[in-house]
Every structure is written in C-alpha cells, then in structure tokens.
C-alpha cells in the first residue's frame, strides 16, 4: 500500500507544480488544492498504515485491544483539511475579486501594486540609444 500511495503523492505534486507554474491564477488554485492533498497524504502515510483496524476502544476497556491504526495522523489530517478548506475558500474568492477588479488572471499582468519600472526604464534606454545612433 505504501509504494502505491508514495507514487500517488509524487504524481499529485508533479501535476500541482505544473499547474502552479503555468502563469494563471485559477490553475494556481487547482495546483494548490492538489499539493495540499499530497501533503495530507504524506502525513497519513508517515503515521504508518494499518489496514482494517479502526482505533476504537471497546466498552469498558481503557485501551484498544490488539493492534489498531494510528489515530494521531488521522486527527492531524482532519485538522489540516479543515484549515485548508477555509484557506481555499478565501483564495478562490480573492481570485474572483482579482478578476472583477483587475480584469485579468495572469499574475504577470497585475502591475497595480508594483508598477513595472523596469520595462519603462528599458523603453527609455532604447529610445536614448536610438537618439545617439542617429
């Protein structure tokens, strides 16, 4: 089971890196969803897998009888999923807001907060160069 999950995690991360680097905010969000699931799976596998033994304590006992699955990674993953859900909800709304108020989803075109002085300087430099060569 572990090798299968390890490969799944690898595939998820590969896809998410591709999506996140593709220069489009919506794809970035999808990539983020995938990579956070990969992280959750990592925690789950790191806690060792025990098949078919839920961590339940029988009535009247203080500890589970026999070997049961590790409950801690399950709790951690659950917390991470809940937190991740909230963050993605925010991120998606933010991206939608970016679409309505900046009318683009390409981060390279978002230059309101950081106007591209570099491009401007380059343009002036080119113009100057033209002047001197003429």
């Amino acid at each position, binding site marked *: 089971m572990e090798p299968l999950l390890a490969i799944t995690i690898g595939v998820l991360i590969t896809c998410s890196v591709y999506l996140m680097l593709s220069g489009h905010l919506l794809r970035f969000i999808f990539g983020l969803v995938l990579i956070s699931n990969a992280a959750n799976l990592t925690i789950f596998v*790191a806690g060792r897998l025990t098949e078919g033994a839920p961590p339940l304590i029988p009535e009247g006992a203080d500890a589970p009888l026999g070997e049961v699955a590790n409950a801690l990674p399950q709790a951690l993953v659950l*917390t991470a999923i809940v937190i991740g859900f909230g963050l993605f909800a925010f991120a998606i709304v*933010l991206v939608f807001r970016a679409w309505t108020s*900046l009318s683009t989803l390409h981060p390279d075109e978002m230059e309101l907060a950081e106007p591209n002085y570099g491009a401007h300087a380059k343009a002036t430099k080119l113009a100057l160069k033209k002047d001197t060569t003429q």
Partner: protein
Amino acid sequence: MSWVLALPLIIPFLTAVAAFMTRSSKSGAWVSLAGAILLLLAAIFLMAQVLDQGVVAAQMGGWGAPFGITLVADLLSAVMVLITAIVAVAVAIYALEDINAAKEHLAYHALFNVLIAGVVGAFITGDLFNLYVWFEVMLISSFGLLVLGGRPEQIDGGVKYVALNLVSTIMFLTGIGLLYGMTGTLNMADLASAVEDTDQKLLTVVAVLFMIAFGVKAAVFPLFFWLPASYHTPAFSVSAVFAGLLTKVGVYAMIRMFTLIFDHDIGFTHTILLWVAGLTMITGVLGAAAQTDIRKILSFHIVSQIGYMILGLALLTPLALVGAVFYLVHHIIVKANLFLIAGVAERLTGSTELSKIGGLYKSAPLLAVLFLIPAFSLAGFPPLSGFWAKFVLVKASLETEAWIIAGVALLVGLLTIYSMTKIWAQAFWEPHPNEIEPKLTTLDRPTQIKLLLPIAGLAALTVIIGLFPEPFVAFAERSATQLLDPAPYIAAVLEAKP
C-alpha cells in the same frame, strides 16, 4: 501555572469576539485597545515568571507531555510575547484614528486581535503541529486585514501574498508529516532528543524543507517577493503591525527549530543560512535604493534587516545569538514605528510617494524628530538601539573570522543610511511640490495625540534601549545561553504537570 501561559492567548481571542460584537459602534476601537492593554499586563506577568523560573511550561487539556499540547515560554518566547503586546497597544491607539468606520464595520478590530492571538500562540507553543495551527490563524487574519477595503492595489498585492504564503504553509505541513514519520512525536522538546536516533541525511532533507517554509514567512532571499508586493497597500496600522510582527514570527520559528531540533549538521544547514543572510541583506537594501515610495522603501528594508537576524542564527555562537535576539526586539519596535510615521506623513502631505511630498521638516518639526530616532536606529547610529544590535552581530562575525559577512553587514548599514537620507531629504527637507505647508496643527488635538502618542512611545523605547543597553544585552545573553543549551527547556516541558 497553566493560566500564566493561557492568558496571553485567551485575552486577544475574547477581545476579538467583543470587538466583533461592537464593530458597528464607536466603542469597537476602544474595546480593542483595552484588550491590548490587558494583553500587555499578561505579557509582563509572564515575563516576570520566566525571569524568575527560567522556563515556564504547562500541558493543555490534561494530557502529559509529549502526548498533549504543551505551551512553553523561555526567555526568547517571553520577550517576543511582551514586544508583541507593546506593538499591539501602540497600533491599537493609532488605529483609533487611522481606521475609518467602514473598515471597522468590516471587522478590522476582530481580525487584528485574532492576528495578535496567532502571533502570541506561535511564540509560546511547544508543539510543532500546534505551531502550524497558529501560523494558519495568523495567516487567515492577515489575509483579511490585507485586503480590507478592497482597493485594486490591495487585491493585487493580496493575490501575491496569499499565493506564496499558502505554498510555504504546505511545505511546512509536509515537513511536519515527514518529521512525525521519522520520530513519532510532535512535541518540540521531545523531538530534540528523538531526532538523534534517526537517519541524519534524511533529517537534513527535512531541515531544508522547514528552512524554505520558514524562509518564505521570514521573507529571506530568494523567497521574499510577496513582501514588497503587498506591504505598502493596506491601511497604515495594518502595515505597521505586519512589518513589526509577521516576518519576525518566521525568524523566531527558524531560530527555535535550528537551535533546538536541527542542530545535527551545522556545517551544511547553517552554511546555507549564512549565504542566505548575506544575500538577503544585500538584495533588500539594493531593492530599497530603487524605490521612491516611503512604504516601499521601508518594506525592502524589512527584508534587508531580516538578513541580520538570520546572520546571528547562522553563526550560532553565543555572541551571535545575543545579537540575533537583541536585533529581533530592536527591529520590531523600530520598524512598526517607521510605518506609523509614514502614516502621519501621508495624512499631512497626501501621499507617501517621495516626489509628491515635502516640507515636513519646516512645518512639522516634531514629526521630523520622531522620524529621525527610528531611522537612525535602523541605520545603526550610536547611541540608538540599532547600533548595539549591529555592533554585537559584527563583533560576533569578526570573532568567528567570517570577514566577508562582517563586511557585508557594515556595507548594508551604510546603504541603509542612503535610503533613510533619501526619505529625509525628499519628505522632510525639500519644499512641498504644491507649496502646501503640512502643519501638524491642521489635525485637531485628539487626532494628534492618537497618532503621535504611539510613535513617541516606541521612539522612547528605542532611545532607552540605546542609552541603557546593558540590561537588554544581559537579557539577550541569558536567552542565548538557553537557546544553545536546551536541556532546561526540554526538562521543563517533559516534566511539566498537566
């Protein structure tokens, strides 16, 4: 003793609830201020306990260590909580005037207090997964604060801030998962000894994962791009509290992890940190030199100053850690203050863009003096706090014969003066381009007090640390000793009663 540690968390959360209930009335801001003052009292009390006992630890929920969640404060944690509370009070006073009713109705004060709770939680938790949760608390409230008001620039900066911070969070989570898989524990004190029996090469890989995750939070080279993209866009109170506290949580987490847990392969990890420190200092200060807006200049200087703190951690000698702790405290006060001053400058002259403002020296000499104190301190002029912080760090690098990094630290200090004189010359000395005389008296008296009182208070702290550095350095020395010899910390955590 658990309530000593729980109070600094409970107070901001309760304040957040109360501030949310009163968000539509005028009292919301005062509720927030009252909460900040209570937090300051709790922080002072915690500090007194820690000074007395060395390390204070408590188990939450009645589960003994290392199974439950531990709250623990050593000297570093306690001083960070205290300084957080001081900044919270200063910004809460400033926000009385700076935050308008529309933003209050959008729950500015509630978000602000949740942010403070997240920061304090990150400083006093002794559990790695709990640290992740506090990071998230801090992150989600900072998202809200950053885009509050919803101007297009804010959305633009917010997108970049949110995107890069979420990636860092996921790397942090992956690192936690792998570390748990290797050791079977998440308690930081327990981890310190548990990592000794694991595959050391694999541990280094995990260490680098944590380094990147915290590096994004701390805004070090080459992971800092979200910071100058976003910090100049929100309200001035928001950027002051961000500038003062948020990146420093990343630095704190890095100092904690790389002194307590990841000290197995110093030759590798701390050499990376040394390079990172040098490059962070240089890129930050050069980035600032290219900017023409006060807040953008200051944002790049946050990056540059983070390099000094990482330098202290990278050298890992007692003196270097003294420098890092001292720098951390000094920097939070100075940086938050400079952003607050930028806010007043904008209020008086109408902009923070240097070419559009001027004349402040003639018309508002009080503001000019208040600017000079933190600006000179940032650049490292004696006898202000920044001088001692830089002096200790440079001395530490010379002692370890790290000549190049010492030279870089001095050069960056020089370039910092360049940026500060640029602000000084253009905002204060040159006349205003529209012939406006931006007098402080154009604001009514209560407004003046609310805006200038926190600035004056923080400036006074800078001067006090500068004139009487001995107790502060002695404190930093004690703290560095604790960091380098974590045995008492580990013992305190593992023996603490539920």
